[in-house]
C-alpha cells in the first residue's frame, strides 16, 4: 500500500469515470486513454513490465487511436445537444453500483485469505518469450489466427460497398 499505488489508482478511476460521464465523445476517448495509462502504470507497480508496456503500446497506441478514428468517422466529435445517457440510465447506474457492491463485498469477505506481500518475481523478457513459444504456443497461434480474422473481418465490415459513393 504505497502512496504511488493510491495516486495511480486515483488516476485510473478518475480517467474511467471521466470516460463514462463526459459529454464530449473525444474527451471521453482521451479520458479512457488516461485510464489505460494508469492501468499500465499499475501493471508496472506489479512488476509486470512486459504487460505494462504491451498495454501502452496496444491500448494507447492502437485502441485509443482506433476509438478516436471511429468517433471522427461517425461524426461523433461534436458535443451532443440532447441527453448523453440512455433513458434507463438510472437502472444502469444502479446495477453497476450493485456489481461493485457485490465484488467489493467479495474482496473484503475474503481479505483474510489473501496472500500477503511476497518478493517481486524476477521475470525477464526472455522467460516470457520462452513461455510464449513453449508452453503457451497453442494459445499464441490461436491469438494470431484471431487477430488475422479480426483484421480481415474489420476491413470487410467497415469497407465501403462497391458502387456506394464516398
Amino acid at each position, binding site marked *: 500500500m504505497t502512496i504511488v499505488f493510491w495516486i495511480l489508482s486515483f488516476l485510473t478511476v478518475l480517467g474511467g469515470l471521466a470516460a463514462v460521464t463526459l459529454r464530449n465523445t473525444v474527451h471521453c476517448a482521451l479520458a479512457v486513454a488516461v485510464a489505460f495509462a494508469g492501468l499500465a502504470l499499475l501493471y508496472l507497480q506489479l512488476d509486470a513490465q512486459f504487460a505494462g508496456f504491451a498495454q501502452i503500446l496496444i491500448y494507447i497506441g492502437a485502441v485509443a487511436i482506433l476509438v478516436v478514428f471511429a468517433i471522427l468517422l461517425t461524426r461523433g466529435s461534436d458535443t451532443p445537444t440532447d441527453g448523453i445517457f440512455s433513458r*434507463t440510465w438510472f*437502472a444502469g447506474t444502479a*446495477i*453497476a453500483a*450493485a*456489481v461493485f457492491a*457485490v465484488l467489493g463485498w*467479495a474482496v473484503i469477505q475474503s481479505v483474510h485469505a489473501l496472500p500477503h506481500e511476497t518478493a517481486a518475481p524476477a521475470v525477464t523478457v526472455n522467460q516470457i518469450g520462452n513461455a510464449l513459444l513453449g508452453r503457451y504456443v497453442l494459445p499464441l497461434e490461436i491469438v494470431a489466427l484471431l487477430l488475422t480474422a479480426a483484421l480481415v473481418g474489420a476491413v470487410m465490415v467497415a469497407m465501403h460497398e462497391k458502387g456506394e459513393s464516398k
Partner: protein
Amino acid sequence: MQEGMGFTQQLTASSIAQVLWLIPAVPMVASGVIALLKQPRRKLASALAIGSLGFSLLLALFAFGHVVAGWSQGFSVRETVNFTWMQMGTGTVDLGWVLDPLSAVMLVMVTFVGLLIFIYSTGYMAHDENYTRFFCFLSLFAGAMLGVVISNSLLLLFMCWELVGLTSYLLIGFWYQKPSAAAAAKKAFLTTRVGDIFFLLGIVWLFAQTGTLLLYNNGAGSIEPDALIGLLAAHAGWGLSAAGAIALLIFAGAAGKSGQFPLHVWLPDAMEGPTPVSALIHAATMVAAGVYLVARVYPLMAAGGTLSQAGEVAGSTTAALTVVTWVGAGTAVFAALIAVAQNDIKRILAYSTVSQLGYMMAGLGMGGVAVGMFHLITHAFFKALLFMGAGSVIHGCHEEQDIRRMGGLRKEMPVTFATYAIGMLALSGFPLLFSGFWSKDAILESALHWHPSSGPFYLLAFGAMLTAFYMTRQVCYVFFGKYRGHGHAHESPRVMTMPLAILAFFAIALGILGTPAWPWFRAFLEGHAAALEMGKFGEPEFWSLLAISATVVFLGLFLGWWLYDSKSPQAEEPDALEKVAPPVWGWLRDRLYVDEFYVVTVIAFYAWWARVADWLDRRVWGGAVAAVTGAFRALAHFDRFFDTQFVDGTFDKGCEELYSGGGLLARVQNGRVQTYLRLLAVAVVMLAAILIWSSAR
C-alpha cells in the same frame, strides 16, 4: 508362346511399366487445363495438347523400345501393374495396366498418328471460333484411347471405352449448330451403346464366372489358361460354352465400336464432324478399338479351339471366331459395295473404313492376332493419310465435300495429290510396294488356308476388287479432269501437308515389317524370333497368292480408270455406273436401305412401344391416380368444412390469447443491447451474491 524357342515370360514390372499410366494421364490433364483456358488462348491450347501428346509419344517409344529390347533378348514381355480399386465384401475389383507387344505397338501408333493429326488440326481448325474446345476434346480423346490401350482390366478398359465414346459424341457434334451434326452425334452415341450393352453383359458375366476382371495377373487373370478352363467347362446353352458366349458378347461391343455390319450405320454419319476428327477417331484409332479389343481378349475368343499358350489358333477354330470371321468378311464386301456409289468424299472413305475394319475382323478370325493387328496398324496410317488428304482437299475447295464438284486438283494441289495417291494405292493394295498390300495379303492368305469354308476368301477378294475400284473412282473424280467447283482451289498450308508427307512415308515403309520373307511384326506379337528368309519369296504359294491379289487389284483399278477417267465426268451428268445398271446404283447410293430398314423395324418398334407406354401412362396409371386423387379431394372437402365450422372458432380464440401473451414477452426483446446487458449484469450480480453468501456461511 512357341515351345522350344527359348522364350520365357517376364512378369515383374519394370520402371517404364510402372509409369505407363502417365501416357494416358498426361493428355487427360492437358485436356482439363485446356478446358479452363479462355478462347483467345489458342496458341497455348494447341501447344498444350501437342506437347502433352508429344510427351506421351516419347513415353510410348520408350515403352516400345523396352518391349523390343526384352523381345530381342528372348523374353516375351508382359508386365502388369495391378491395384485394388475397391473392396466389395470379400471380393475386390482390381484395375491395372499391361505392357506387352500388343499394347506397345498400339501405343506408338495411337500417339504417333494422333500427334500428326493434332499438328494437322492446328492448320485445319485455325479459323474455328471454338478452337480451344476442339483441342480440349481431342486431348481427352487421346487420353481415353490410350487408356483403352494400356488397360489390363476389362473394367478400366470399359471406362475408357465409354470415355472414348463420349469424346466421339462430342467431336462428331462439334459443330452442333448444324442439325445434321447433332443428329449424327446422337446416332453414333446410341448405336455404339447397343454394342456396349452386350459388352457390359459380357464383362459382368465374366466377372461372375472368374471373379476377376484383370486380363493378366500372374496366372490368375480372367483370360489366362486357368480361368479359361473353368469358362470352357461352364455351359451357356445353344451348344456354347460360357467362354464362347462371353466372347460373342464382347465381340458385339467391338462390332458396335468398329462399325461392323448391323451396327455400322453411325460411322458414315459421323463424318459430320471436323475432318481431323474423322481421321483420328473414325479412321485410325477409335474404330480400331473394337479390333484391338478382340485382339486383347483373343485367348477368350480362341478358347476351345486348339489353344496354344499364347492364344494362337492352330488348326481348328471356335464359334466366336467363326462369327467374327463371317461378320468381318460380310461387312468388308457390304461396305465396299456401298462405297462404290457415294459422292461425298468423306463418306466414301467412311464406308471404306467400315470395309477395312471388316478385313481386320476377318483377319483376326482366321489368321490370329498378328494378321488383324498388322492390317490395323497399316490401315491406321494410310487411312489417316487419306482422311487428312480429303480434309486438305475440302479445305482447298472451300468446304466442298461432293466429289462431283471437284476435279483437276492434281495441278492445284500437287502435295496433296501425291500423298493421296500413295494412300489410295496403299488402301487398294497395290502389289509389293505399299504396306496395304502386305497386310491385306496376309489376311487373304489366312483366308485361303481357313478350312471351315472358302466363302470368306471369295468375299474378301471381291472386296479387294471393289476397294480398288471405288478408290480409283474417287481419285478420278477429285484429281483428274477439270475443276468443276466454284472459286479457285488452293494448296493447304505446310502445317497440314507436312503430316501428310510423313504419313505417306509410313504408308509405304510399314510394309517392310510384315512381308512373308521377314514377318517381324507377327514374330514380335507372338513372341518368337524373327528370321529373314528371302526364300519365302520364291515359294509358289507366295506367287499364286500374289497373282490372285494382283489380278483383283488391277481389275479394280482398270475398271475404275476405264469407267471414270476416260469419260472426264461432269457434275450434273449421271454417274458412269448409273448408266450401266440404274437400279443397282440406286440401291447402293441409298446404302442398301439399312438405315431405312432400322427406321421401319427398330425405330418403329420403339415408337410403337413408346405410344403404348404413353397410353398406359395416360389411361391405366393415370386413371388409377385420378381415382385416388378424387377420393382424397372429397375427404379434404369434408375436412375443410369441419375445420372452418368447428375447429377454427376455438383455435382463433386461443391464438389471440397467445398473440397478446407474445406481445408481453416481446417487450423484453426490444432490440436494445443495453437492456440485454442489464439483464445479464443483474443475473451475474445475483449469481455472485448467492455464491459468495453460500460459501461465506
